[in-house]
């Protein structure tokens, strides 16, 4: 495989993989979302 292509590919893919894992893990470790309103009728109208 062409060396320039390999370097380019590895750097790009590593950066994207790192950013993906970093933000996803950070999101999982942060506060949960509020979810459905407390006053919800729990979808019983349907």
């Amino acid at each position, binding site marked *: 495989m062409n060396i320039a292509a390999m370097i*380019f590919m590895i750097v*790009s893919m590593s950066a994207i993989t790192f950013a*993906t894992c970093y*933000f996803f893990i950070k999101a999982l470790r942060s506060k949960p*979302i509020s*979810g*459905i309103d407390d006053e919800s*009728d729990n*979808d019983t109208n349907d």
Partner: protein
Amino acid sequence: MQRDGWGSRVGLILAMAGNAVGLGNFLRFPVQAVQNGGGAFIIPYLVCFLLMGIPLLWIEWSIGRFGGGRGHHSTPFIIQSMGKRWFWKYVGVFGIFSNIAIASYYCYIESWTMSYIYHSICRTFDGMDQHAVSYFFSDYLDVTVSTTGIPFEAILFFIVCLVLNTYILSRGLSGGVEKAAKIGVPLLIIFGIFLAFKGVTLKAGSEGAIFDGLQGLSFLWTPEFDSLLNPKVWLAAAGQIFFTLSVGMGSIQCYASYLKKRDDIALNSMSAGWMNEFVEVVIGSCVIIPISIGYLGIDKVVELVQTGGLGLGFRTMPFLFQQWGDILSIVAGVAFFGLLFFAGITSSLAMGTPLMGFLQGEFGWKRSSSALAFGVIILVLGLPTVFFFQEGVFDEYDYWAGTVSLFVFAMLEAVLFSWVFGVERGWKELTAGADIKLPTFYKYILKYVTPVLLIAVFLGSVVRPENDDWNVIANGGKWEFHNESLIGQILHSGSGPNTEYFADKLYAEKDGVIDSIYNDKGRNFIRLSYLSDGKYQHSITHRYKETDSLCVKLGTTVKTGDVLFTGSVINRIFYTDFARVLLAFCFIGICAMVYTAGKKRKREGREI
């Protein structure tokens, strides 16, 4: 009205990522990269992601949560709640229109993947050569022909696909969409990693491969820095970022409208956006290009990508998988079309929610009724793409709804957020409840760079010159519009000599040679191969009836405008305009509903 919402943060991120990850990640991105400088494409691509993609994600998440906080769950009133003036709600119409129009052909592609999973399991492609697999796809698209004895197979799978979408949507966000994303996104990543592993470990001489899979990766990633100076590459990169993140559609705003003010949007949007990039760049680039180059070589793949990723995916991949042996070919077929299916359905579900949010929020419809309405509308609007796929209705939908509408909406919402609502207020909205600190220089990017970039890309698409020769600006030559430019499209520039809806003659659209006249399953075809780069390598196939009279013979050399046959002809331009009229009616219909909803709100004294 039923209340809806997200059950968990991971579910929200996976649903948003599933919305973004679509068929384009696997079929469009590698083709765009091959056509635009290989590895050098990734530089403008990532620059556009940082300067246009991320800001647009933030804008749409912020707009959505802002509108949701005021009780709106679809773009017309979400947008108006931010812009205040009455006309903003009609700008928001794009956010329902795009989703409906795109879903009507997107669900059709989704149904192909279901059908191809079925055919992979049934080993329909066993023993077929590459041409047979390619013809199988053509036959599949022709609803008058049954490929497997199932009558109207394409329609049947389309309806099954719509029923599945409607059912999941009727279960609501946490009970339907979120559950589907929690299953679909991890599965598509697993399928993708399996195929990527097979692609990069493909060795010349084993399993029928003639080249290493790495050669395909090398081809895809070899930088061509000259292409960085080509505006066409930048336009293509900006376009790809746009489509891949599903921005400009209205679905992100709708999903985000179910969040509360205290919920984070900055980190969630980054997480979903980067996950999409991972699937597209890391997995997407390792599947179809390495595998197809491993078996067909670079020249053949470059020729095949001219017809786009769909051709490569459905006309070529099933044949290549056959080389992997009995069991692995089934596994690979299910994995490939399975990942496309999950990528597709997680996106099409997102397309259903804006209309549902609108019907539920404005007219008090039940969730199940609004999901059913979505299914029926998609069926009605989608059937022309099924029946007249070969005549160009599908392409027309894709152009106007899947390209133009998205750009227009994104441009307007970027202006709304940064200039009308104000970037300071917008920044405050974006950072409220944020779990990460955002770099403040992005405020300036949001205010100046993103809107300008969007407007530049849009204008570039409007006046794109023929052969993408942008040097005409410097040289001062005559400006001819590209067939795919907005102006070229409006003027039907590529329609050649067949300019009437109904005619008694069909004219050759290019110079070429008649290389085939044949009958297949009772249908008559005439094929014209035309010159490209000095070789006869592309062809146009026309179907003719028994009653038509051929004016050419096998081997006849024809010039553009020569008569191919006489009889009763309905030209492509008719179907093109038919599709445009349908889309226009759809847009006007939604405007009328928004107008009615606005009046209703006024009567009921509900604040916007």
